[in-house]
């Protein structure tokens, strides 16, 4: 294990040493995403940015020239909801596809860790007696402040063509704000941050509890979570009112106490709400409207249902679709009753992206705990096989998430002036035999990590206890 890590470190060190500040990939097919595909052209990168792209883009003197003959250049992929970069939030068990995490159709994803995981943000573990105790709220946290460049998932995800994640401090109920992170291997985490605060992560459990389960305090039922969130927003509104009044004329007015939980809520420009079932989509869309918060829904396991698209259209909220498709239970109890819905979720779940595309719903795909290049490729392929056009699949992993988070001016496509996040492949990106040749993050070149031996796992993520 250690040897492998050391080898990877050496490899990345070598990769960095190789990186000149100016480079050009010529004679390559270029999938710009924002414009038409260029059959044979050149991409010029300087100082981490795309300087030029086109059939006849001129190559500057002294540039490192890569011959892209037979290769395709794509924008780097974006994981629109992730915990990559915060190692303590890595799934404790290996993701599906290897008999790890069981499939459910109702649990929100990603599975949040208990509220008290990191020492720096842990709330004191006392019994919460109501919303006023602000249990499981760390709304002021920014993922950007917790990024650890040594998270082994960075290399793994990057090897699958992902150059960017929208990483959330996904714990508790108000987990904190997500940050857009470039998956570069750099010494200083701050250099990885593209945008530090893009939205508040909210988890809503069906019961049993993020806050610690029955007996550990408020809330523990789904309706408790909803009441809790509602109270926080009422409090935030009231807090803002008092603060403004005080700022206007502090004389003679009692000073409103500072509340970091409410500050974090007020600082968030959008919220992310979980919704897998149709009923949950309806509930969360109404809830976001009631709270008057721009929202992004995540999960979407039942988005294939015919009622879903019109509902989403009505509210206009973008959605993030989990690529962790519902799977049939492995070695199921033959006596166990399967509902029609659970069978449909398995059968039709991967058709959701194609249907959302047809209906014109803005959506992006997210990895939902998958981090192995092969399984990610298979997951996207499944959506393509179920009706999502290939170019739309690419868009759902590049420009669409950039648009959803309001950073399409710097990420998501191959355009002059944008960040030079690129994936260079031999073959079409999601084909079985396609090989990713190189990955560029902020203009720096990385080679994909060597493939794990068949049947085994890469690294040690499968070994018990390793990821904690």
């Amino acid at each position, binding site marked *: 294990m250690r040897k492998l890590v050391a080898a990877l470190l050496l490899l990345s060190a070598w990769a960095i040493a190789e990186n000149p500040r100016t480079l050009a990939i010529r004679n390559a097919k270029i999938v710009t995403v924002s414009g038409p595909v260029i059959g044979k052209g050149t991409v010029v990168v300087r100082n981490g940015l795309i300087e030029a792209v086109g059939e006849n883009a001129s190559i500057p003197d002294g540039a490192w020239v890569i011959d892209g003959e037979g290769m395709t250049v794509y924008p780097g992929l974006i994981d629109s909801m992730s915990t990559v970069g915060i190692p303590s939030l890595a799934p404790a068990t290996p993701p599906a596809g290897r008999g790890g995490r069981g499939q459910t159709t109702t649990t929100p994803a990603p599975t949040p860790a208990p509220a008290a995981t990191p020492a720096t943000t842990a709330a004191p573990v006392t019994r919460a007696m109501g919303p006023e105790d602000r249990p499981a709220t760390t709304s002021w946290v920014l993922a950007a402040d917790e990024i650890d460049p040594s998270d082994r998932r960075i290399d793994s995800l990057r090897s699958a063509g992902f150059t960017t994640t929208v990483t959330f401090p996904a714990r508790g109920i108000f987990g904190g704000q997500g940050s857009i992170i470039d998956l570069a291997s750099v010494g200083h985490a701050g250099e990885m941050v593209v945008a530090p605060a893009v939205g508040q992560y909210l988890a809503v459990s*069906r019961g049993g509890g993020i806050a610690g389960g029955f007996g550990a305090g408020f809330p523990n039922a789904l309706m408790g979570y909803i*009441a809790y969130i509602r109270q926080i927003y*009422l409090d935030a509104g*009231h807090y803002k009112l008092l603060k403004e009044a005080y700022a206007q004329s502090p004389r003679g007015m009692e000073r409103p106490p500072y509340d970091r939980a409410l500050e974090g809520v007020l600082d968030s420009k959008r919220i992310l709400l979980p919704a897998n079932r149709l009923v949950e989509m309806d509930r969360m869309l109404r809830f976001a409207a009631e709270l008057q918060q721009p929202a992004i829904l995540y999960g979407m396991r039942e988005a294939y249902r015919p009622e879903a698209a019109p509902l989403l259209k009505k509210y206009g909220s973008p959605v993030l679709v989990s690529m962790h498709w519902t799977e049939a239970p492995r070695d199921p109890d033959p006596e166990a009753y399967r509902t029609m819905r659970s069978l449909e979720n398995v059968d039709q779940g991967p058709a959701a992206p194609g249907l959302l595309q047809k209906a014109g719903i803005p959506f992006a795909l997210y990895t939902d705990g998958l981090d192995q290049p092969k399984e990610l490729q298979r997951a996207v392929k499944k959506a393509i096989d179920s009706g999502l056009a290939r170019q739309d699949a690419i868009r759902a992993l590049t420009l669409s998430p950039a648009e959803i988070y309001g950073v399409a001016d710097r990420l998501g496509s191959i355009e002059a002036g944008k960040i030079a996040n690129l994936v260079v492949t031999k073959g079409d990106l999601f084909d079985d035999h396609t090989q990713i040749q190189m990955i560029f993050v902020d203009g720096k070149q990385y080679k994909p990590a060597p493939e794990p031996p068949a049947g085994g796992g890469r690294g040690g993520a499968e070994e018990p206890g390793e990821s904690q």
Partner: protein
Amino acid sequence: MRKSWIVTLAALAPVYAQNIVIQNATIMTVTKGTLEGSLVIKDGKIAEVGEKVMMPLNATVIDAGGQYIIPGIIDCHSHIAVDGSVNEGSVAVSSMVNIKDVINPEDIAIYRALAGGVTAANILHGSANPIGGQTIVLKMRWGRDAQGMIFEGALPGIKFALGENPKRPGNPPGGRGATQTVPARYPATRMGVEDTIREALNQAKAYKAEWDDYAAKVARGEHPLPPRKDLKLEPLKEVLEGKRYVHAHCYREDEILMLLRVADDYGFKIRTLQHVLEGYKVAQEIAASGTGASTFSDWWAFKIEAYDAIPYNAALMQKKGIVVSLNSDDDELIRHLNTEAAKAMKYGGVSETDALAMVTINPAKQLGIDSRVGSIEAGKDADLVIYDKYPLSDYAKVLKVLIDGRVYFDRNNDVNGRPAKALEKQKLLDKEKQSQPKPTGGRGPVQ
């Protein structure tokens, strides 16, 4: 293609609510006697009931020869259609939570209740807290979304609970000396339950005073900053203002009297006592307070406080002038509340009409929706159940259920549709089986 047509038609149905005539039936109106005749439905409402009726133009005619029509059954105590736990049990006062937020319109229990003739139900929070969550009345409009299920205009309620359930978290397993991972929750005694309720109401009173003061200042033309809105105290303020019904879970006579006194002290009324198995002992006091009672027909002894019960409870309370309903509190029992009503005839000699009233007009009165539902009268919602036989019998089957004049359950359609549904399911099961990876390894079949 055909499927999408059906969807379209179903979507248009409420817009073009048909006129329906049900004829040749025995109509048990509950409030206006029983008659042989016909019933006219226009725009979702009952337009006319009588031995002879005016046949409207373009009416769909349902011939119910030999069949019985009763008003849609109303269950005053149910926990169906709830997503997640029905108890926010973490706190002694959980009035901030609301069943309205967690309606699950796809809970199959709704369809099953509908198939048992239930057209409306009071969906309650559980009984883990002296003061529980907010409640809501739903119509069993199977196929509609959560908002479409809500009985529009019905006053919302709140759950109170007395006795063993709310005090149990104060007495965790292993006893009070045992090592607990979490501290026990107050209260642990019946005295504590009363104290908890009074304390919450005191807070609500102070809260109400704060808002009243604010409103007075605004009315005077001042510009004060509003007080903090507290989701826990808002519904209790509404209780004090008579804008929200209290449905109180209780068993023992002493705690029933306790609660009536508490309500008196704070100047509001308990709308219904739920379960109220010892209600027969204090029926006079309950009647005097104008409180309704919603009980089980013959279910008891499931815990110590539920031992001193008799099947005559409903009849005895009714004879003292209490509005009595019979409820299910259960996903299965809700499917045959008609026979629960029949039991009141056997135990206590309640008349057929009065027995039926216990699952129709009486719960409607208790929920404040009796101007809309609960009996078959011109002007009321066409929420109706058609039985093949005399409905106060074990042998009666529900044939059709209408809500707002629309057929939401049709036994024939259900039964005839089963083979096609089973086939569709089998196809998916087979498909799933085929896509499962084949087991690897050289071992032969397991012996």
